[in-house]
Every structure is written in C-alpha cells, then in structure tokens.
C-alpha cells in the first residue's frame, strides 16, 4: 500500500499562476475571515485587495468578497449594521449595474447581502441554537454563476461550516421562485446542520454575479489547514473552485 507520508502534501505550496485580476476583500469592524479570504484569492492566482467598510469608492477591483465574521458583533441581527456601511452602497450599485460586479458573500457576508436585499430571504438562529463548526459536504446545484463555473452541476464538495445564525429562511413563494429559476446554488448534503429551508446552503441572484452562502470555501484551500474529505480522508481544497471560477469569468473564459 501507499508508503507516502500522510501529510507530505502540506509542504508543496504551489500557487496558481497569477491572473492579475484584483479581488477586493472588505473588512468591517468585527470581520474575522478577511485575511483568510485574501489568502484564498492569492492561492487561486488572483490579487487580493483590502477594502475598508468606510471607504467611499471601490477602486479598481474586478470582484468583491464579503468575508465572514461578526460585523458589529451581529448584535442587532447578523449583518444588519454592516449593510449601512458607505462601501456597501457602492457594492450594491456595482452589482446591479450593467457591469455586473461579481460579489461573493460568505457567512456574515451572505447575511449582509440578504440584509442589503441583493439576495432574497434571511438567516435566523440555527434550529439547535448552538454555534456549530464542522466539515461540511455541499452539492453544487448551479454551476453557471460567476463563482461556481469551475464546478459541475451536482458535484459534491467539502468545505467548512461555522456559524450561529445559519438557518436560511424565506417565504414559500420566494423559495419556489429560487428553485424554479435554478437560483439555489448550494445545498447541504446529508444532515441539515442548521434547519435551513429546503437544505439551502447558498443562493445566487438572477444574473449569477452575486452569490451568497453560509459555509466557508476560503477555509478549504490549503492542505493541512482544511477540512477532510469524508470519502478519501484527504484534505479538501474544493474551496479554491470559487475563486478560480471568478478569475475564469473575469478573463472572459467560458465554462
């Protein structure tokens, strides 16, 4: 059988060739996973650009990541106060403009996107009322968006889930619309870890440039610091696909 040291692949820090695309990563007071998101962008071959919530302009970034954390402590509602940051109105405008700025909201970033009404629905407390941190398998339901075009529809990927308010809710009409338009981007596979309606882990807007999800792809990008794939027992770097997808899209690459 295999004689290779189990952890050997950690040493190889191959980074993808730089594409030159500039991906903004926004920091709000209370943001936690901003450095992690920047690392993921870099490992995927993009150039991370730090953005500050109070900035008045977006600069010349080609896409934006709203990372995880507890902006303003999530004290009022997750993402509720961050939504009013000066930079958010710029992001909302750019996302809705003809240029269709690609925006990815991860965890707290997803919550900010729903609070901003860029994406429908909202998140409430996990049904078991506890914070949960686990390795999570997702099914990619829509592989056509700016952030998922490097996956295959139906593909199962392993990333990290960690949150307190991760239960996705929306009224039945909205849910039916999301399903009908193929806008459910990711679904939990197996046990539903937070009671989300219809097992929804992430959604996209109609144009496919704005994607939000509760799990954390930026924590599944580097062997040794990543979740384990349940089948193979190896480290999962499935999260890289999110960032290579947007880089691919930015250079005009088709699926």
């Amino acid at each position, binding site marked *: 059988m295999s004689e290779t040291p189990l*952890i050997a692949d950690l040493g190889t820090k191959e980074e993808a060739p730089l594409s030159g695309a500039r991906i903004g990563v926004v920091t709000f*007071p209370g943001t*936690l996973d901003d450095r*992690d998101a920047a690392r993921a962008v870099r490992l995927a071959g993009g150039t991370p650009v730090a953005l500050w919530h109070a900035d008045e302009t977006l600069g010349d970034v080609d896409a934006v990541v709203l990372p995880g954390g507890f902006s303003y*402590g999530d004290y009022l509602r997750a993402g509720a106060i961050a939504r009013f940051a000066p930079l958010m109105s710029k992001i909302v405008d750019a996302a809705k403009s003809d240029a269709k700025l690609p925006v990815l909201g991860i965890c707290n970033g997803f919550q900010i996107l729903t609070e901003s009404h860029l994406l429908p629905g909202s998140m409430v407390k996990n049904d078991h009322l506890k914070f949960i*941190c686990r390795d999570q398998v997702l099914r990619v339901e829509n592989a056509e968006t700016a952030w998922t075009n490097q996956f295959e529809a139906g593909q199962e990927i392993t990333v990290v889930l*960690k949150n*307190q308010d991760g239960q996705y809710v929306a009224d039945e009409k909205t849910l039916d619309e999301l399903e009908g338009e193929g806008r459910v981007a990711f679904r939990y596979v197996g046990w539903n870890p937070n009671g989300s309606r219809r097992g929804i882990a992430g959604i996209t807007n109609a144009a496919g440039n704005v994607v939000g999800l509760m799990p954390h792809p930026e924590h599944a990008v580097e062997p*040794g610091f990543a979740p384990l794939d349940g089948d193979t027992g190896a480290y999962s770097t499935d999260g890289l696909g999110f960032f290579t997808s947007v880089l691919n899209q930015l250079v005009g690459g088709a699926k």
Partner: protein
Amino acid sequence: MTTQSARKFNIDTVEHAGQTPETDLPWAELGLKENEFEEIVKLLGRRPTAAELAMYSVMWSEHCSYKSSKVHLRQFGEKLTEEMKKDMMVGIGENAGVTDLGDGWAVTFKVESHNHPSFVEPYQGAATGIGGIVRDIISMGARPVAVMDPLRFGAIDHPDTARLVHGIVHGIGGYGNSLGLPNIGGEVVFDSVYQANPLVNALAVGVLRHEDLRLANASGVGNKVVLFGARTGGDGIGGASVLASESFDDTKPSKRPAVQVGDPFAEKVLIECCLELFKASLVEGIQDLGAAGISCATSELASNGEGGMQVELTSVLLRDPTLTPGEILMSESQERMMAIVRPENVEAFEKVMEKWAVEHSWLGEVTDTGRLIITWDGETIVDVDPRTVAHEGPVYHRPYHRPEWLDGVQADTFRSSAAGASLPSSGEELKAAVLTLMASPNMCDKSWVTRQYDNYVGGNTALSAPDDAGVIRVDEETGLGVGISTDANGRYAYLDPYTGAQLALAESYRNVATSGAVPMAVTDCLNFGSPEDPEVMWQFAEAVRGLADACQTLGIPVTGGNVSLYNQTGTTAIHPTPVVGVLGKFDDVARRTPSGWRKDADGQAIYLLGTTRDELDGSEFANLRGHLGGLPPKLDLEAEKTLGAILVNASRDGMVDAAHDLSEGGLAAALSEMALRFGVGARVSLDELCERDGVDVFTALFSESQGRAVVAVPRSEEVRFNDMATARNYPVIRLGVVDVLATSLDVQGQFELPLETLREAHEATLPKYFG
C-alpha cells in the same frame, strides 16, 4: 458628555485625610486585615483617603497581590538554569511570558482562571475569562492567534451541572468565536469535588515580531497617559459598594453589578486597533485593564517605569455617571486598555482611535516624582508610592502541614480495596470494560463542546481537538509554528500533590512532543482551596515545589501563570488542580503528527513506546468504580525527555504518521481514540507486551503508567524507527498493524470491538446529558 467635575461629591482629599485622622474607614468590608490597614497608614504617614483605600484594598487582595502564594512561586525563578533562560525573552512578572521562536518571531502565552465569576453567571463569567486573558496577550505587543479552555465541572448528573456546562461552553464560544480566535484545545473533566466550584481556566496565545514587544511600563517623563476602549461602569465593584460611604453621601444608588458583561465586538476592535498602534510604534508602554482596573494599570505602569505618574480622574469616560472616584479606580469594566504615548504621537494615536471608532481619554502624564498622584477636578485624592501599591504588598508565610488523612488515603490502594476485586479478565469482560471506559464522562468524546468552537478561523490551525496538542502556524513562508497542550489530573494531585503537579507537566510535555513540537515553555494555573487551611496550603506548597523541580529537570521555564485560591465550599476544598500548559515549537508545522491513523495508512505498524507497570491507583478505571486511593503513577522525568526526543525526531524525519500519548485510560483509551480519530481499524496483540512487562491483559489495557505513547510507522520506516528507539535505550514493542478493511479494534485472542459500537458509546454521553 457629562463633565464629572460638575458632579457634587464630598471628595475625601489627601489634605482632608491629613486633617481627619480619626475618620472610620470601611477597610474590613473592603477585605483588608487590621495589620494590613495599619501598614497602609504607616506607609502613608496618615490615614488613606477613600480613593487610596480603594486602591490598596484591591491591589492587596489575594487575587492581585499573590500574598499567600508569592513565597512559594519564587521557586520558578530560583530554579531557572541558564539553559532554561536561553529562549525566554520575558519571564514571570509581566502580563504574559514571551519565548523566542527564531527568525525574529516570538510567541507569548498564558493561562488564567475565571472560576468564581463563572459559577455565579456561567455565560458572562466564561466569556469575560476569555476576554481578560486575550487582553494580557495584546498588552505584550502580540496578535492573539488562539485560545484554549481547560474546564472542570461537578458530577455530570448533578442538577446544576447542565446549567454550568451550557453557560460556560456557550460563553467561551460566544466570546472566542467572535474575536476570530480558533479554539485549539482544552479539557473537560467531571468530578463531584468541583460541584459548587467549577474551574474555568482560559489560555491565550499570541505571536509577535521581536521589535513589537511591549512592556507595562510608564517611561519617558512628559509622555501622555491614555485610557481607551470601553467606558468605565460599575462592573465588578460588588454589591456591597461600601465605598458609597466614601462620598459621605447616601443619595447615590448603591447597586453595583458584581457581574461583568463582555462585549467581544469591542474587544475585537480593540485588538485590531492595538495592532495598528504597535505597527506604527505609537505606544511606549501598554497595560490591559483586568482585575483592579485603573488602580492596577496606573500603579503597575508607574512602578515599572520612571516611577511617577499624574492622572486626572474626572477625565475618565463613564458609562455610569454616579460612580465615585474610589469606584472608578476599582471598576473592572472590560475591554479597556491604558497606554503611554509620546506627545509627538498624540495626533497619530487619535487618528487610529478615530478609524476604529474607539473612545479614548487622556488622563495625565509620566513624571519623575516617584509618586502616583491622582486628582479629582484638580484636588489630590491619591498620593502614593506606586511600588507600595503594585509590588510591595503584604507577603504571608502561611502555616502548612501534611494532612493527617493522607497516610490513610495512600495506604488504600485500588488492588487492596473492595473496588479492586473481581476485575475483568475474559475477553468479553475486557471488551465491556473498554466500552464503559470510553463512554464515561471523562473519557467520552468531547465534540459536543468543541463543535461549538471555531477551530478554523485564521486559517493557521494545523491541529486542534481531539488531537494531543493544538498546533498553530506562525509564519506562512516557512511553516514555523507552535503546539500547545494543557493538562492536570486532580485525583493524582490529591493523592500526592508534589508528584501530581509533575505528572500534569509531564503529560502536557508528552502531548506537545507527541504532536511533533519541541517543548520550550510552561504556563500554569494553580487552582486550590483556601490558603488559610494549612492542609490546603501544604498541597499548594508541594505542587509548586514539584512543578518547579520538574521544570528544571525538563529544562523548560515557567514564563507566567495564575493562582486561584479559595476554591472550596465550607471546609471542603476541590482536589488540588494545577493546570499546566506547555508550548513547543515546530520548524515547519507540515510535520505535525495527528493522533490517529488515516485511511491511507493500511498495513502501517503500531508500536508502543515505554514500559507498562501495575499502576491503577488514581486511574480512570478506579474512578469508574468510585475508588480514589494509593499513590499516583511513578514519574521518570529523564524517560519523559527521551520519549519526547524520540517522538519529535520521528515526526521531523517522517518516521511516524500518527502518534498518541498514553494518559488517562491507558492503552485502552489510546488505541480506541486512534482508531476513532479517522474511523480506521487495527489488529493488535498484547501477548508480547504482557510477557515482557509481566502484567496481565487487564493491566496492560488500563494501567496509567507514564512515559508511554503509541505510534503508527510506515513499513519503510520500521527499521529506522526501531533503531532510533533502541539507540536511546527506550523500550519499544510492536503491537500490530493498521487494518483499513477491519471495521473494528481487534485485540487478538481477547476481543474484537466494532468501531461503530465504540463510536456510539463514545459519542452518546455528552448529548445524553446536555442535549
């Protein structure tokens, strides 16, 4: 904003104190002893003002002054060798110790207790425990990078335990998760001795570049003193609020919250804001505000620096405008820091505050008068030598003696007791015993707890629960990193506190080495009963002596820690519980060793390092049968060093793919945990081991002999691995092989335990009690 100078107080000034020597002061209510009060009068040459009394009373409390423990803790310094000092950049005495990692990197870590507040209000008590230790780390100039939480609860089925478990775990997660600090390890132990005295110890670790190191001193005459972060409220002053009398005014509200509420968002902002200050070199000295609040920060900064400081107290921003000066000095409001800033940096400092929307107020400046002068609206209410407040408090040589009951306890060995009769011996009995052990409250799976903690945030966690040590990458370029473990066994320390403390250190050391890190430094949190009980004091003295001696033998220094006394209800003290944290270094965390074998490890050889003796006294097995007596396992520190070196070398040279130390629950626990880690089975035989060490199968499985570890060795490395152990004269024996197809732990000739059965038993316990 309220200007407090407008407020009507009948202020007790220094001048007034001089004129009214006969005034009755509530020193006893503030916890001072008569001799201590007399000492204060002697130091000042007059009666203290109300504000001075407030300062001395909090700073001379057991918690802040270490008055009962100081004479013993000295040994940690006295027993330092040159070798131990080599990498120690900052030792005991500062907010946290600092260890050099090379390449210009350094690491700081410390463990502290928040036991009593967590019993009163579990969520907030535990949350603010994390908050407090993290501020200690920030104040060294470091970025906090991880936390750990050694916990002790009462009996798992006691009605109050669920309240404490839920609140405390939720509080630790609620605060730590919100700070973006991965939780990389801890302990969960249940024992009825902790019923009304749960232990909530919190450890934080931070990293810094050498040039960012900051100390808590106020140097540079004319430099400014600034208080920043949250506003000051009545937190932690206590319901008594005897200082209401300070204003000789009974119209003010006397209700002061004894409970502090944490604001993790404020602390997260404080972290980022401090790091920006350090990076731009905008602060000269910095001190966190914890116990004793402004009293502590001003007196420590002043006495560590030029020796003088002048502060105007009405400049402090308040959350509760009715606070008296004494209360402001005592308040333990969270999420505050005090810093010393050069005048030319004031503007830049304010820019950083503005960026992060952190409130701040300039309180005064550093002087060379040797006096700490605090004014209230210009009138002097404190005029003291800061050293007498901060460092020259009372020191007690409390009487101690060996408890008379100890001989009886030590004579009551497990084998000789009724509990030790009819031990499992058939394969079926042994199998049942392993299942019972692995489902027991102390040995069961802890993921009900650890799943509530973020262990991924930061992207640098290389190992966390359930591995032997938490491992954090420090430098992304080189992979430089650290591994940390915390351990304590209160039952061992009860049977013999000297050895018990050493065993805690040895286990922690072994855990760190098992993960592949070279042990470098120690932090400790000494949780004991009342120092006024000579028998408890003896336990304390013995534990400190044991720990200091063992550190010397192992060659690693204690760089910081904390003492928590009075953990007792009535005359019943908790087991002495010296929690020991060991920190080790990795040149490259890519080489860290997980505590179980993976799916691609089929056919790897399983070896046991070390010797198994008949050592069941104080063991988890004895605990299952409700027995506690005899002597704890023997400890050979030289053997532990050798074992550590073998494990570190094996990891560095890629000779082992998995390793797990043996501690509570012995070999039975180690093999079960290794198989469950990634759900991969194994076939082992204990025959050769039993023959070599002269023990029966039961003893081989459940003895808690020290100096042992199980490793999985790839076939290609077996020769090298054996040679290395033999060259060092360390006992090593091949137990069997990893078997990916086997879905069980097969102890040949004895029993075959399906992993599913084992997992179910192991994982069901905490959910059963806590939902």
